[in-house]
């Protein structure tokens, strides 16, 4: 799909999208198109009210050059922001796919920046699982338009803005692609290969294999990966756009390429979804890819502990005591609480090796956060109010909202082991998301700002939504990119 910007897109396109505000007012492009009043007459006989994201597909009224008209509801005119422009792009694309047509002109009377965000929303809404997973296209898999022309008051500014946002879209799409990959096609080494295969944007990729993981003392990561025939990896992807003196932000992403639970095996129903248990790592890789593509003047490093959690003769057992990278010992009371183990090592390792100013980790970590917050917000845990503010604001700005949950030493009691420094989980009806966050906090090096995002509820969408189909959302890519100073 080729996206261009123009002051006046060709009106004879097979598909033409025009906009109406919630109060029933047409935008100038619609008013000009509908000189005869035929479109507004059709609207009067419909339920279309111009609410945000509503789309009414109209057969071409007599006298118009276009093939079909997509009437797009823009919502109320006040507080129109980039996030809304992106959502509208998603709505236009969903309707365009259903309507069919090789060429699409979008005339919503937006300024250059909003037009670029509209393009972002269109690109994201178009995503589908890797096509080679099917032998032939699904019946409802419509071809996207080949050419899209978006009207913008300043086409040059729109194009410049889109050149940056296109990289952001690529980051999100990369994350979704990785999450959609089934476990048989994406083990730790395969994930590492995807990092190596990033286009030449100037990122540095560093990979620790299982021997190096042992030498570096990452005992928790090694133990989680021990049950799998496919050994673990620790991948670091660095983008140093900020120069030698700028502070480093480490983005640590949980990368369990498949999580059976290990010896504490999960139940069978819905276990297939555990192919997405590397969504945190995918989000970090996507964010660094986006920042590098935009040549953002910041220093970030994605640190990705990758392992497959399988039950096997060599797997770690409940009761095992492990030596972590930080030196603390951990008793494994639940092999299915493995995410916090690999993150704990990666956080401590990143703190020691990268001298970061801040560490943000992101993980599909607990079912408890879904019980707490559902699928509309991810959980945020941090002791640093400034970092909390920054992440909360970034989340609201890009429609990836967070909600802060308590981080408290009161949970140390639940993490007390009779034999080791810590245990990794308490059983029963316990606030496991809070326990997990507190567990991780024990591995954060002193004087490093740290935040933890639990995205177990937001990594997969259960139905089609504004910026994508049902399935992987890429949640975190746009949030982390925004928090690291992109956009």
């Amino acid at each position: 799909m080729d996206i261009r910007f123009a002051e006046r897109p060709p009106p004879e396109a097979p598909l033409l999208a025009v906009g109406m505000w919630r109060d029933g007012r047409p935008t100038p492009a619609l008013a000009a198109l509908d000189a005869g009043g035929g479109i507004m007459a059709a609207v009067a006989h419909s339920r279309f009210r111009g609410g945000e994201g509503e789309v009414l597909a109209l057969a071409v009224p007599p006298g118009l050059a276009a093939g079909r008209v997509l009437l797009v509801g823009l919502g109320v005119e006040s507080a129109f922001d980039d996030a809304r422009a992106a959502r509208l792009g998603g709505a236009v694309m969903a309707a365009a796919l259903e309507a069919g047509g090789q060429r699409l002109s979008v005339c919503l009377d937006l300024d250059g920046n909003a037009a670029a965000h509209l393009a972002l929303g269109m690109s994201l809404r178009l995503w589908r699982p890797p096509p080679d997973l099917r032998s032939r296209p699904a019946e409802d898999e419509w071809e996207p338009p080949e050419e899209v022309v978006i009207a913008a008051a300043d086409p040059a500014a729109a194009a410049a803005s889109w050149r940056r946002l296109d990289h952001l879209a690529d980051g999100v799409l990369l994350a979704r692609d990785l999450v959609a990959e089934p476990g048989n096609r994406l083990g730790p080494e395969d994930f590492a290969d995807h990092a190596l295969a990033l286009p030449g944007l100037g990122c540095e990729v560093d990979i620790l294999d299982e021997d190096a993981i042992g030498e570096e003392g990452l005992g928790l990561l090694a133990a989680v990966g021990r049950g799998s025939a496919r050994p673990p990896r620790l991948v670091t992807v660095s983008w140093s756009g900020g120069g030698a003196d700028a502070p480093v932000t480490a983005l640590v992403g949980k990368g369990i390429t498949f999580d059976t639970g290990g010896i504490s095996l999960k139940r069978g129903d819905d276990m297939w979804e555990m192919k997405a248990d590397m969504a945190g790592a995918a989000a970090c890789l996507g964010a660094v890819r986006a920042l590098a593509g935009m040549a953002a003047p910041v220093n970030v490093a994605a640190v990705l502990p990758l392992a497959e959690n399988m039950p096997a003769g060599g797997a770690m057992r409940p009761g095992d005591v492990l030596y972590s990278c930080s030196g603390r010992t951990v008793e494994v009371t639940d092999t299915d609480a493995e995410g916090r183990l690999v993150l704990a090592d990666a956080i401590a390792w990143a703190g020691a090796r990268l001298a970061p100013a801040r560490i943000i980790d992101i993980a599909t970590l607990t079912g408890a956060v879904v019980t707490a917050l559902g699928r509309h917000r991810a959980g945020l845990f941090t002791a640093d109010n400034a970092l909390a503010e920054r992440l909360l604001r970034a989340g609201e700005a890009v429609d990836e909202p967070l909600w802060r949950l308590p981080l408290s030493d009161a949970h140390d009691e639940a993490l007390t082991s009779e034999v080791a420094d810590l245990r990794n989980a308490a059983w029963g009806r316990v606030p496991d998301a809070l326990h997990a966050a507190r567990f991780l906090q024990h591995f954060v090096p002193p004087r490093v700002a740290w935040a933890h995002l639990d995205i177990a509820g937001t990594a997969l969408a259960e139905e089609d939504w504004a910026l994508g189909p049902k399935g992987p959302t890429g949640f975190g890519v746009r949030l982390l990119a925004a928090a690291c100073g992109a956009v």
Partner: protein
Amino acid sequence: MKITFAKPELPGEGSLVVGVLDGRVLTPTARQVDERTGGALTRAMKASRFKGGKDQTLEVVAPPEMGVSRVLLAGLGKAKEIDVLQAQNLGGNAVARLGRAGEDKLLSIAIDAIEGCSLAPAEFAAQVGFGARLGSYRFDKYRTKEKKEDKPSLKKIALLLADHADAKKLYQPLDAVAEGVFVTRDLVSEPANVIYPETLAREAERLSELGVEVEVFGEKQLRKMGFGALLAVGQGSERESQLVVMHWKGDKGGEAPTAFVGKGVTFDSGGISIKPSASMEDMKWDMGGAGVVVGLMRALAARKAKANVVGVVGLVENMPSGAAQRPGDVVTTLSGQTVEVINTDAEGRLVLADALWYTQDRFKPRFMVDLATLTGAILIALGDQHAGLFANDDALAERIAAAGSATGEKVWRFPLGDAYDKQIKSDIADMKNVGGREAGSITAAQFLQRFVNDVPWAHIDIAGVTWSKKDQPTVPKGATAFGVRLLDRLVAEHCEDD
């Protein structure tokens, strides 16, 4: 337990508590005792891990010539960090250490002026007394064969300080709050064969002795009034459902009242959607919200709060039977909105729906707060450290959070929003009564919000904090009465003018 205040003279009997600051710095009274005993306290500290840290204690047997039998050194920590909650804990810890250890005469606590401490001695003493009173609670009426020596025998606590008259004055309203707390703890601790809707209503009626106007509505009246949701929950039980309205008119100005609404499911078996047997006995405290509202009204009346406050509790028992409501039933609430009952174990929100609508409709309150042991999900979300707070009004939410921090009854706010509200859409009625496992506490709050008619409102989910599994300084194991202190504070700060 009697709390008294007296001049700072060393007692001739019982046990004595003296304060020690961080770094083993003795307060003046402690120094005086140390001198009188030839340095016994200093020697005892040196031979122990006791450093005077916050919440640390060290018991020293006193020499015969002292008169008192024991001296308890109570760690105060750093002077400038001493706060109200720490003072309360000190009192609670002293009672726990000495009262339960067999002290049966007198427990004296010396309160010294401490340099750098923001609490004046009188305030400090009043709060220590409050903590001691709260910590002394025990529910033992059903232990008929307990040996005398196993029962706590302490009858009197004396706080010794120069400003004892001021301290006594400051303590009076706190004693009223403690009374309210005890009423709540009793109601929550009582088993369900003793406390059921009619007997709980009868306990509430006793508030009229203190000047609270109490109205009780039975099933016949409630049916006429249209309480379709509340009655549907109670229809499986042989006990008659009740609604109790308590009105404390402590403000003569005629301002709109503040309203508190409590869930009072005196026993929750789950109904036809019956619960598993394990731990079902805990469901005797599913009337915790109602218990708090009754205790709060008691506290406000006992301290003659200058506020106009209404308490409303919906009382039902949720039982399976041939007459019980079924999953799939559609009930019409007092508000006129219809609810499809998907799960009969999500019954608390049905009771509250009618009680909230009634409260806002009849009293037009300035704001209303409901309390309920509403969801199991809140235990998974927050554990037992915080109650869940939900509100349609940011200012009210902030006030409740501040009152919670000040009283040690902490709350944590959760989001509300359309995305969550969609989860309770029904295929055949205006809404259904459950929205799935995900965000279970939030969808319950969304349900309630549909019955508050845009009145400033907050909902506190106390399912994780109503019962304590372990002893804490001012909250012995068992019923906590979480909410009484918080809401008393909220009323004092925002509904009373003096």
